[in-house]
């Protein structure tokens, strides 16, 4: 009832609340709670002389606490509608913004994020995550791809071949995502496709997260001997990228199934058409034809 605007098409509709956050997604004839936010982990500052207590750095992800910090409580929104695409431009703060878009006749929604330069004036390294929380009862099980090929089943706080007690709950549940991370219950399924390799996890039931950017102030003593703290152009780096969200029924029998849609979308987004531009000032349309 609180949702105040939506974008979408006949296959997928995204609803945003009065605070400017995504709140629900309607697809396959059902509406599910799906919210998305940017949060960050504060990087651990360790003692590099102790192997088990190194700082978060270029080679290891080690947050100081399992709790995340919010980036913004009320992003500013601008909504553009047209005949081909509907877009929501979200501005979270001075260094995080995003465009959420749904193209006509597409089953997926695009989240094009822009993060950086990450401020470190407070002396703390930060690792920024895009997190999608849903009401899908995934019971700690999620799936990550194996280099874009088969999907591997992951279970939070679990290893298949030994009894594990994780001392680092967050980092110990992170997995490499090359193209896709997904979860489901008996009714619904949610998948996120990436445009590049990222770290990702499911830190709660129905939740998926992907790390999009990080800036750290301490070396992790794995060889590079420098903190992951780039200052090109006089300030920290800015990263831009896209996540593709697909929500649908996990029980769908008719073609295309939700997983088939994910696979086709994955192919088309990872192997898009190559664009070549040519100046045509010297040739008119008839000659070109």
């Amino acid at each position, binding site marked *: 009832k609180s949702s105040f605007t939506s974008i979408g098409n006949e296959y997928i509709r995204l609803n945003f609340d009065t605070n400017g956050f995504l709140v629900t997604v309607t697809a396959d004839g059902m509406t599910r709670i799906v919210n998305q936010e940017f949060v960050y982990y504060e990087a651990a500052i360790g003692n590099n002389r102790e192997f088990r207590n190194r700082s978060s750095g270029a*080679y290891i992800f080690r947050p100081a606490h399992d709790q995340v910090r919010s980036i913004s409580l009320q992003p500013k929104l601008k909504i*553009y509608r047209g005949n*081909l*695409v509907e877009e929501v431009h979200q501005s979270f703060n001075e260094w995080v913004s995003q465009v959420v878009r749904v193209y006509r006749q597409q089953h997926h929604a695009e989240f094009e994020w822009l993060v950086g330069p990450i401020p470190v004036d407070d002396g703390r390294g930060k690792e920024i995550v895009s997190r999608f929380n849903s009401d899908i009862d995934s019971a700690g099980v999620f799936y990550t791809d194996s280099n874009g090929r088969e999907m591997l089943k992951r279970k939070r706080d679990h290893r298949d071949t030994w009894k594990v007690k994780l001392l680092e709950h967050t980092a110990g549940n992170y997995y490499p995502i090359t193209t896709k991370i997904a979860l489901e219950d008996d009714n619904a399924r949610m998948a996120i496709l990436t445009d590049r390799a990222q770290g990702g996890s499911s830190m709660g039931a129905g939740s998926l997260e992907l790390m999009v950017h990080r800036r750290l102030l301490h070396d992790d003593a794995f060889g590079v001997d420098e903190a992951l703290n780039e200052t090109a152009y006089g300030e920290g780096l800015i990263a831009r990228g896209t996540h593709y969200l697909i929500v649908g029924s996990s029980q769908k029998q008719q073609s295309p199934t939700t997983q088939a849609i994910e696979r086709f979308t994955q192919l088309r987004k990872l192997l898009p*058409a190559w664009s070549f*531009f*040519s100046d*045509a000032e010297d040739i008119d349309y008839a*000659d070109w034809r």
Partner: protein
Amino acid sequence: DPHLSFMREAMGVMQHHDAVTGTEKQAVAADYARHLEVAIRACATNTKEVLNQLTVDTAASESATESGRRERRWATGPKKEYTFKFETCTLLNISSCAVPEKADKFVLTLYNPLAQTVSEFVRIPVPDVNYEVKDFDDVTMETQFLPIPAPIQDLNFRKSSALYELVFLASSLPPLGYKSYYITKTSGNAMKPVPDPAN
């Protein structure tokens, strides 16, 4: 072949895990980008040759058909070869591309690397909102213009006149084949995109 070898060598360097995952220092990333840029430029000649070859094949197969508009069109005159320079826009990740920003008339050629027909929404950074897109069949495509988000426009290292993105649907790109679109800046005053009023 020497042009392709340039690309082969660059791709060989890119086998390093830092180049694939982006775990390298930024100066190294910039150097990898430079390698690729040079290699892609070198291969522009190959692109032209291959597209000409595809055009020849298409013309031959279509004139062999018994009926159809394409057969008649190809039969009306000598086939012209591409003389264009094919430029790859390596700055599209910051919504910048030199050709559409400078030229009032340009051609976009899309090559589909998949073994299936696909349709794809295209986004082209442009400085204004008055452009017309036509396909090879003299059909004017439906277009939409969206503003490039302010945080992208404000990037202090971005040297671009593009303020908008031109969006259109490139439909039915043939498998392992291409389609071209002729894009012209028009003189009319077009409506600039405005956000929905605040609710």
